[in-house]
């Protein structure tokens, strides 16, 4: 199988599995327990926190482990809104192209009385800083803009955005969904004016069921999940120790070979885009300066569900957009927000790569795609 849906999830790296295995076997202690078995679990969790913090470029204490990217986004938005509300701030600014973890949480908060402004991107998928600033109000609690879009790979100007929002009103919290940015750029969160950021392990060859929320020290964010004293009272619940250790190992792997990793991704993307150019009537919808991991392509006249089914049978895994709504027939909200019509959205397929993808796989995939496209187009002209 040629796996080209790494934006949905990535294979767990064998080294990561090896790092996790002891915590799924003999080292099963609860990190809150005071005896030796508990203390060794605690040590493992704290070592992983340092690894994830180094990867995110922030202080170790600013990383809060969660059950994934969705929970991190949820906690960021709910906690920032609750903190803002007690200061009379009930307004949220976000964009129309966020992941559903942010969009649906915003809709949830609207049902609780929040006011939300949705900033539209430009046609190229980039959200302009001034468009976000124009929506700020004196009662804005939080601004949330994703760093890399999961359907197009578009990069957003997060650092500049955070700086300008803070200059306008230092009390507005800035959240950014870094789930797709994590493997493709140095995050350097501590060096930015961002207050909150969401990460997910399973997008960077770590395990599912673990993520992190970056919470800048001193930020007026309110914890959401309450109970035990775990995560310095910022997220209760017995820690997913093996998952956290795996996230740490995955982060450390990436930090260790950043340059080589990015060079490999760039090469994959180039190979793929060059290959696509040989297929007639193809439009690459991802911007050339976007994340090297994601290439969104329109095959004119070919319905994406038909193509994806044939690719599956031919051993190529790809998708029509965000995995968590893959089962639904809705056209991508991201493409629609960028001004494409439903027809375009229904002819668009997302291919996404990771460091474990090889150039040969890309070449084989191109050959298969070309074949399937030409057959699909032929069938259509037959009928």
């Amino acid at each position, binding site marked *: 199988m040629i796996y080209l849906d790494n934006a949905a999830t990535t294979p767990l790296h064998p080294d990561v599995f090896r790092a996790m295995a002891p915590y799924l076997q003999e080292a099963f202690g609860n990190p809150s327990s005071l005896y030796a078995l508990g203390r060794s679990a605690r040590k493992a969790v704290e070592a992983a926190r340092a690894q994830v913090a180094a990867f995110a470029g922030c202080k170790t204490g600013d990383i809060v482990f969660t059950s994934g990217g969705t929970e991190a986004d949820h906690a960021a938005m709910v906690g920032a809104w609750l903190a803002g509300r*007690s*200061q*009379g701030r*009930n307004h949220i600014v976000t964009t129309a192209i966020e992941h559903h973890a942010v969009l649906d949480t915003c809709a949830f908060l609207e049902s609780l009385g929040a006011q939300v402004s949705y900033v539209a991107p430009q046609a190229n998928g980039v959200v302009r800083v001034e468009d976000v600033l124009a929506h*700020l*109000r*004196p009662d804005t609690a939080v601004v949330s803009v994703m760093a890399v879009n999961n359907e197009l790979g578009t990069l957003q100007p997060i650092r500049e955005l955070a700086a300008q929002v803070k200059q*306008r009103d*230092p*009390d507005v919290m800035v959240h950014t969904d870094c789930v797709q940015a994590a493997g493709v750029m140095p995050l350097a969160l501590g060096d930015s004016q961002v207050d909150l950021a969401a990460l997910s392990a399973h997008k960077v060859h770590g395990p599912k069921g673990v993520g992190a929320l970056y919470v800048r020290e001193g930020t007026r964010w309110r914890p959401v999940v309450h109970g035990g004293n775990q995560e310095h009272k910022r997220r209760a619940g017995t820690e997913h120790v093996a998952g956290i250790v795996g996230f740490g190992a995955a982060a450390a792997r990436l930090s260790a070979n950043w340059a080589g990793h990015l060079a490999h991704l760039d090469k994959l993307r180039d190979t793929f885009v060059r290959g696509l150019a040989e297929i007639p009537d193809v439009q690459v919808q991802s911007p050339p300066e976007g994340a090297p991991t994601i290439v969104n392509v329109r095959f004119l006249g070919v319905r994406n569900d038909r193509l994806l089914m044939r690719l599956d049978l031919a051993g190529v895994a790809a998708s029509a957009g965000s995995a968590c709504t893959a089962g639904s027939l809705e056209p991508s909200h991201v493409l629609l927000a960028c001004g494409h019509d439903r027809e375009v959205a229904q002819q668009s397929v997302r291919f996404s790569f990771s460091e474990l993808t090889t150039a040969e796989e890309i070449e084989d995939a191109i050959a298969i795609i070309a074949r399937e496209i030409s057959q699909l187009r032929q069938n259509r002209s037959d009928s």
Partner: protein
Amino acid sequence: MQLDDLYRQVIMDHYQHPRNQGSIEGDALSVDLRNPSCGDEITLQLLVNAQGVVEDVRFRGSGCSISMASASMMTEAVKGMPVDKALELSKEFRAMMRGVPPEEVDMGELEALSGVSKFPARIKCATLAWQALEKAVRSEDEAE
């Protein structure tokens, strides 16, 4: 629904470079006031001379940008003003927060905060320092 940019700059300037921040040496009037909705606090000190003029006024506090900027602007506005005039200004300011445009009194820079009236939940932030001023004057009256 934005504050005018010029107004915004005035507010940010006061927030980043607060005037009259600190405390007065000696026996000035001092009041602490808390915004119950957010827990933010301000301590205001007031020195009124024999002629009934505000000779010095200073504040300290922890609060949002609007409350701290408003405190800074308030101290600047009332310093050197007779107490009764200061109270009148306070009344006008609160009216402005209710959306009533100022008539008699020239609000000067305070006008920059007029946009806050559109955000009921933030009005407390802008009026916190003025409430503290009124409370300080009242406590002076009672002392006499």
